[in-house]
């Protein structure tokens, strides 16, 4: 419980305008610590290694060779050494390397997308934490208000202006406010835990967050958003890299039937006795050959590559559609939240002015204190609604600016194959 209180105090400090961790700082921490980025970097490094390996020539073979090895007139037969080398022909090696490099590019595109996803996920957790802290502050004020109302009701009962049911209602309101405050405190804890996890430091000590929910983010141009998304989406870039890799794989597969040149040569000592009674002596041998692509022309491999290319292209199409589908509700939430936030920005000053006037009236003894409490209650309700709206506005804004990539703790490869989250 003490940790929760510390978290609440720390997050509340942000609302009081104290300096604290900024979103940019948290995002930098996440870019350094988030394991999904390490995974994505490892995958890219592996792909780079594969690309390097794909360009390697086959190693030569050296060995001993002996034939007709027996005694008698043949003496020791023919014995010697050979060197054998396979020469890849037809650009197969380059094609394989190009395919590997294309896969590497795909991994790097996935890494870029994951970096965006982590930044967005941190932003979402940050705004959740800010909103939770704000909600806790307001729930605290609500509890203070309920307690004030209960005291006032008791006073009113003391002068015959309230009845026992009124006092019971006031007591219930206090209990309700206490429960709401406890729930808000738990939400603060959860928000901090989520923020710490997505940053990659679950032991991150609760501390103040810099920034405020109000007045909300700078306006986003939603009119051409989908078109921009379809040209700038990192997920779509990764999918397009997948198409490039599949095309390179197909090219490599088509070159695979081109036979390699097999060269073999050597020298040997021929001990076979000649007519002159002397051994034949040193002699050389050589062979060259290629495999005839009569039966295996890599038909299956080409067919598989063709199918994978079609699949990669379909993935681009699917992702474009998925982006449109995902963007629509987020845009709708953003527009609704922006409109509501603007309305609250207009309404709250009115509510605060009304509350201030009634408060002044009370001290001038021209308005009753229950009117002040009612005005305070209306203002608090507005502020709670405003905080919820601003949270939604910030979240939808961050999601849209993050090109809909929000899963900061899902493996990048999984993300790319599943499309954007």
């Amino acid at each position, binding site marked *: 419980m003490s940790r929760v209180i510390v978290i609440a105090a720390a997050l509340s400090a942000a609302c009081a305008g104290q300096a604290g961790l900024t979103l940019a700082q948290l995002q930098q921490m996440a870019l350094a610590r988030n394991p999904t980025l390490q995974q994505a970097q490892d995958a890219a490094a592996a792909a780079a290694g594969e690309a390097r390996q794909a360009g390697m020539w086959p190693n030569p073979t050296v060995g001993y060779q002996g034939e007709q090895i027996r005694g008698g007139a043949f003496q020791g037969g023919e014995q010697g050494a050979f060197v054998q080398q396979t020469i890849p022909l037809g650009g197969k090696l380059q094609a394989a390397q190009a395919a590997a490099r294309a896969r590497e590019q795909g991994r790097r595109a996935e890494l870029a997308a994951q970096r965006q996803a982590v930044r967005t996920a941190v932003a979402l957790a940050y705004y959740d934490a800010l909103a939770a802290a704000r909600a806790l502050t307001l729930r605290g004020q609500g509890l203070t208000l309920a307690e*004030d109302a209960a*005291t*006032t009701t008791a*006073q*009113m009962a*003391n*002068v*015959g*202006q309230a009845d026992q049911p009124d006092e019971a209602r006031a007591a219930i309101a206090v209990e309700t406010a206490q429960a709401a405050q406890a729930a808000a405190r738990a939400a603060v804890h959860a928000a901090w835990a989520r923020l710490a996890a997505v940053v990659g430091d679950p032991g991150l000590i609760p501390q103040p967050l810099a920034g405020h929910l109000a007045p909300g983010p700078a306006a986003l141009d939603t009119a051409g958003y989908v078109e921009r998304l379809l040209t700038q989406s990192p997920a779509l870039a990764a999918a397009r890299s997948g198409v490039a890799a599949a095309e390179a794989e197909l090219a490599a597969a088509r070159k695979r039937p081109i036979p390699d040149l097999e060269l073999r040569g050597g020298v040997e000592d021929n001990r076979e006795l000649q007519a002159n009674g002397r051994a034949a002596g040193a002699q050389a041998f050589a062979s060259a050959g290629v495999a005839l692509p009569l039966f295996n022309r890599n038909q299956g491999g080409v067919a598989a590559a063709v199918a994978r290319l079609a699949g990669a292209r379909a993935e681009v199409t699917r992702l474009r559609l998925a982006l449109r589908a995902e963007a629509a509700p987020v845009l709708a939430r953003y527009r609704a939240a922006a409109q509501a936030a603007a309305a609250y920005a207009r309404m709250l000053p009115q509510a605060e002015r009304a509350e201030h*006037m*009634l*408060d*002044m*009236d*009370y*001290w*001038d*003894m*021209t*308005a*009753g*204190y229950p009117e*002040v409490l009612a005005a305070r209650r209306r203002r608090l309700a507005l502020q709670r609604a405003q905080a919820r709206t601003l949270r939604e506005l910030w979240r939808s804004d961050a999601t849209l600016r993050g090109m809909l990539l929000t899963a900061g703790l899902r493996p990048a490869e999984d993300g790319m194959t599943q499309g954007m989250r």
Partner: protein
Amino acid sequence: MQDRRRFLQHAAALGAGGLSLRGQTQARRAMPADQPAPTAPPATTTGPGVQTPDLKKLPWTDDGGVKVFQLVAEPVRQELIPGKTLDLWGFNGSAPGPLIEANQGDRLRIVFDNHLPEPIAIHWHGLEVPNAMDGVMSLTQPPVLPGGRFVYEFTLRQEGTYFYHSHMAMQEMMGLIGPLILHPSRPYSTAVDQDYVIVLQEYAARPNNPVPDSMAMEFNWLTMNGKSGPATTPLIIRHNQRVKIRLINLGMDAHPIHLHGFQFWITGTEGGRQPESNWIRRNTVLVGVAQAFDLEFHATHLGEWMLHCHLPHHMMNHMVSPVGPLTRGTMTGAGRGAGKMAGMPGMAGAAMHGMALPPGWIAPNANRVPGFPQDAYMEGPMAAMDAAVAKPETYGLPPGWSGAVQGMMTLVRVLEPAMFDHIERLRAAAGGQS
């Protein structure tokens, strides 16, 4: 006949619009340039002249023996107490309107202009006038349209305390009433030294809206001559003078007006002077709606005596329950005047800012006593505004006096001659009655 001819000539001069048998209206928004400038009325009454605390008298001009008054109904801004001004409808700049003072037998011509945004007609309450002059819209006369004019003319057969008012009910509640005092052609047998008239009114106004709700049935601002206590101007009496106070009520409530320290005779009603055999001795008179009473007494007791409506809710301004933080704890920096009125010159709240109530004012266990608080915060130091309402007539009152004078309340100050004379000099220096 001569009077009638002049009346017709005057009416014809008003231009288009014509004159009906019942009167004459005309759409004119400006005062006519050919109107003679009003002059102060000569002192031709048979009494001492009626004093109208916080009100003016309507001047008149003589037109061949006809007293001509220029009466204008218009929106007015009426300050009830410092810091509280209402948007009312009144006559010639105030609500209630100025006193029309005349003598029994006078011929009156009231040139009435309507500067209000809706029709109106003026009723001369209790006067025996020709039916066409009675001021009932659509019954005895056509409506006086916005910007229009109607000329009322009649001879006064009566004497006593009367009043004039719009005959439109809601307009009455916006303030459209004024006193009309007719002095007798022969002096009353018991002459008075001081003669006052006080018009009782009531308004329902929210704390931040200067426009009263004329539809309301409960009222939070109660006035005497357009002022609420402590802004009401005290009545200054020399010891042993005989005093007449004329009370007029036109609102929704009857007001039990009580005078401290004296038994008075009710010598007149809205029906005029009563035979002495009908006089009633009381110290409280219930002034009903649309009624008037004349009270007379000898000011034989020195002191600062209250005159007020005794309805408890009418004895304070904008009464609300003080429960809340005001009544909890030490009261530091709180109280009337600590809010929007803070900083206003003379406001007790501003002066008290940062101060507690006087020691012993609140019992330590007050909040544990059933019934607390009642008046602790609504009257006394919390409500005092001595400096803001200071005027010659308040000279010599004890510090904090204004905290005790609230709502439909004023003071009858019976003073030693020296103090009376001093205050009279102060009044003269200030330009006459407040």
